[in-house]
Structure formats: C-alpha cells, structure tokens
C-alpha cells in the first residue's frame, strides 16, 4: 500500500493546559481533498499548522504536542529548521485572517513566495505567473498595483491570500477556515476555485471549515473535530445523511457551536 502523503499518529495537543487534540490519528492519501469541520475554537486550525511544523510558534505560547505528524513518512518534528523551511516551500496555506503583508501591494504580496524562493532555475516569469493566479482568483487588474490589503474588503483579501498560496503550485494546499464570514455566493465561488483547476495537481487539498455544506460534492472525505476527537463522517453522500447533530445543523445552514 502506498505511503500516505500525510499521517497523524496519536496526536495530543495542549495550549496553556487546554487540550485541543486528544489522540488524533488519521492518514490522507495522494490526490485526496479533505475537509475537517468543527465549531469555531475547537482546534481544527491546528491541523494545517501541525503539517507546517507550527510556524510562528513562541515559547510563551505554552503549546505542548505529543504523537507524530508525518509527511511522506518523514516526521515534521524531527526536521531541522532549514529542512522544515524547505518542506514549507512545497506547501501553500491560506490563513483564516489572510496573513497578508500590509506594507506590500496586492501584486507584491502574491509574488512574495516566488520573489523570495526564486524559480529553482525554471524559466517561469514571476509577473506573468502572478497575473495568471490573480486572474484565477478574480482580482481585477486595477486592484493589483499600488493597492494594499488594508484597502480591500474581507472577500478580496481572502482571494489575494488564496492567490499567494497558489502561486508556487504547492504540493499540499491548505486553507484554514478562511471562508468564514463571507456571503453564500462568494463562499461557493471560492470553494470552486479551491477545488478547481488551479489545485488539481496538488498531492493533497486540506481544508478546515466551520461549515461543511459548501464543500459537499467537491471534497472526497469529511471529518468532524469534537472535543479533541476526530470523527470520520465519510464522503459527500454520507455527510448528506449523517445523523450527528452538528452535521444536521450545518446542512440546514444554522451555525451552532457544539
């Protein structure tokens, strides 16, 4: 059997004494699109962060992790700083708040990963790749040069953040609950982009979301994080008929915390 692209082995995660993940084990395989749902604050955002090796972590965060996170069989926790930075270059993540650099305009924000890492000797033109990605995420040309993220609305910032994550053609593409607070039309449009042609070559698409409904028929596997435990819900067909109260409420479009 093929090695999973990503595997979590009995992961326990605590922040300041509060347990967010409690013995979580799962494996995601080549070409899968996975959605992890859960109420806001349940700890689902730790999944993409664990895969990235917890970027931006400070000692003062008092975070403790047990278990192991493997990417293609290699433990993220055993990687040195440089190896981890190399690993992260092959991943693209859209953060919940966008994480855009405020003193750069839209174009420079999107081109930043390519401008920093270069093309690895390839003949890719950074400007044309940026234009291609920004076209794909629906940012018009007039909003690219000289427009900083603070001048954009929430939906536009999310689109730019998606563009920045896509610009390097990541092997593992992750979105951390970035669609929360957007209207229904924008949400469905963005889900189509996230699961569309721009990411079809990715080895894994991992989305965490406060709502599962927009991802139905777009993703392969759905999980639910409840009180630190990861529950496998199945594919779209199973989610549509699932009896879990949170899933039922989600289907009805009512957001209720567990």
């Amino acid at each position: 059997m093929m090695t999973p692209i990503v595997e979590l082995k009995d992961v326990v995660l605590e922040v300041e004494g509060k347990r967010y993940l409690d013995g979580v084990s799962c494996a995601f395989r080549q070409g899968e699109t996975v959605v992890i749902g859960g109420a806001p604050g349940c700890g689902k955002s730790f999944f993409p962060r664990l895969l990235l090796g917890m970027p931006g972590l400070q000692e003062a965060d008092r975070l403790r992790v047990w278990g192991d996170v493997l990417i293609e069989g290699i433990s993220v926790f055993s990687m040195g700083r440089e190896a981890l930075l190399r690993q992260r270059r092959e991943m693209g993540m859209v953060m919940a708040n966008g994480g855009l650099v405020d003193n750069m305009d839209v174009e420079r924000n999107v081109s930043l990963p390519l401008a920093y890492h270069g093309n690895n000797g390839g003949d890719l033109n950074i400007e044309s790749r940026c234009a291609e990605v920004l076209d794909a995420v629906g940012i018009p040309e007039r909003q690219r040069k000289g427009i900083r993220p603070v001048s954009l609305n929430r939906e536009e910032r999310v689109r730019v953040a998606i563009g920045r994550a896509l610009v390097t053609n990541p092997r593992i593409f992750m979105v951390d609950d970035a669609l929360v607070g957007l209207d229904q039309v924008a949400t469905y449009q963005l889900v189509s982009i996230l699961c569309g042609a721009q990411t079809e070559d990715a080895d894994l698409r991992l989305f965490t979301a406060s709502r599962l409904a927009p991802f139905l028929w777009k993703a392969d596997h759905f999980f639910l994080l409840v009180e630190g435990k990861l529950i496998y819900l199945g594919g779209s067909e199973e989610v549509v008929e699932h009896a879990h109260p949170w899933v039922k409420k989600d289907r009805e479009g009512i957001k209720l915390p567990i």
Partner: protein
Amino acid sequence: MTAWIVRFFSSIGLRCTSALTRAWAFFVFTVEVAIALGQFLGRQGFVASFRVSMQQVYFTGLEAMPFLSLLSLLIGFTVIVQSLPQLQGVGAHALIGQILVISIVRELGPLITAMVVITRSGTAMAAQMATNRITGEVEALEGMGISIFHYLVVPRLLGCVISLFCMIIYFDAIALIGGFLVASTRLTMPFSLYVDYIFQSLSTLDLYLSLTKGVLFGVGIALFSCYHGLRARRAAFEVPMVARSGVIQSMFFVFVSSALISALFYWI
C-alpha cells in the same frame, strides 16, 4: 516572620530566574541572527531581503537627514558657543580643534545619532515587528518557508548599521561646519586655519572610535528593537509595551557601551 523571609527570598529568586531566562532568550535570538547574517549573501531570497535592507536605509538614514542636519549644526554651534569664552579667557584659541574632536567626533556624534535612530527607527522597528506578529504576518511568512531572521531581522540590522555609520560621518561634518560658523564670526578665524586646527587634533583612532561606536550601536539598536517587537503575542495593546522595552534597552546599551568604549580608549 519566617514566612515573610521566605516570601522575600523567593521573590528575589523569581526575579533572578526571570531575568536570566530573558537574558538567555535574547542570547539565543542573537545567535540565530548571527547565523542568518552569516548566510545572508549566499542564501536563497537574498534579493528580496536586500530590498528590505535598502528600504531600512532609506527610512533610517535618508529620511532622518533634514532633522539630523539641523541637530548637528546646532550641536556644533552650541559646543563652540559654550567653550569659546573659556578659551578666549586664557588665549587658547588653538584648542578649538581639540575640543570639537573630543566632544563631537568621539562622544556626541555617535551618541546623538544613536538617539535619533532609536527614537525614529528603533520604535518603528519594534512596533512593526510586533504588528507583524499580531496580525499573523510572521506566521504566514514562516508558513511560506521564509526565515524571519533572514527576511525581517538581518535586513533591518544591516540597514541600521549602514545608516548609523553614514549618519555619524554626516553628523560630524555638519557639526564641525556649525562650529566654524561661530569661530568665523566670533574670532574672524579663516576656514583654512579652522580646518588646520581640526586636522591637527583629529587622529585615525578618533575616527575608528567614532565609527566603531556607530556599528556597535546599529547592531544593538536593531537587535533590541527586533527582539522585543517579535516578543509580542496576540493583542494590539502589546505594541507600545514592546516598543517601550526596545527603546529603553537600546538606550541603556548605547550609553553603557559608549562609556565602556571611551574608558577603554583613554585606558589604552
């Protein structure tokens, strides 16, 4: 009574432990910056980081020039205005060069320039770093595989050092011109004689001393500002707190190291 003594000593112990922990964290940060500095040229992302360095030079050095010009002119003017009556009293006009070199080139030039950089750029650096941390930019950069030491800290450190180095030379030159304006009006001293007095008093060691202080202050200001800025965690109210810590420690570092270097100079 025993409980009070225990509380007293445990509070001293806690303060010492906390100070040592902070000092160790700063040491680790400095080592990380030194490693990133060593790899700065050869590492991928050099062009992007170099651009940040140049922006820092522009902000710290070039944008401060008008203010620094006025300040240095006034300092040169004031030093001569204060010392000239004393020199005239004993007929020692020739000492004007020595006074300017000792007070401005060796001491005031580096110190006042460092103060300008701390108040303008040190606070800005610390606040920007803290904001980057709070808004998730640091996390996003690291998530993209960008080393924050290579992309955020080292370029600022280099920008700060280059700026301070150039600013000190500029400050000294303008302050000496300020001194000449007074000397020429009060003593009708010709420019050639004034320059002669200056160059007779100015040794290579004076320049080394002044510029060494510049480099050291640049490193210290950038390190303390970035370290405290990156200490911020989640809330906006932390921004002024870390900026204040950065400024206080930078000032402390500048004054103590300036005194030590000057003492070492006279001891040699």
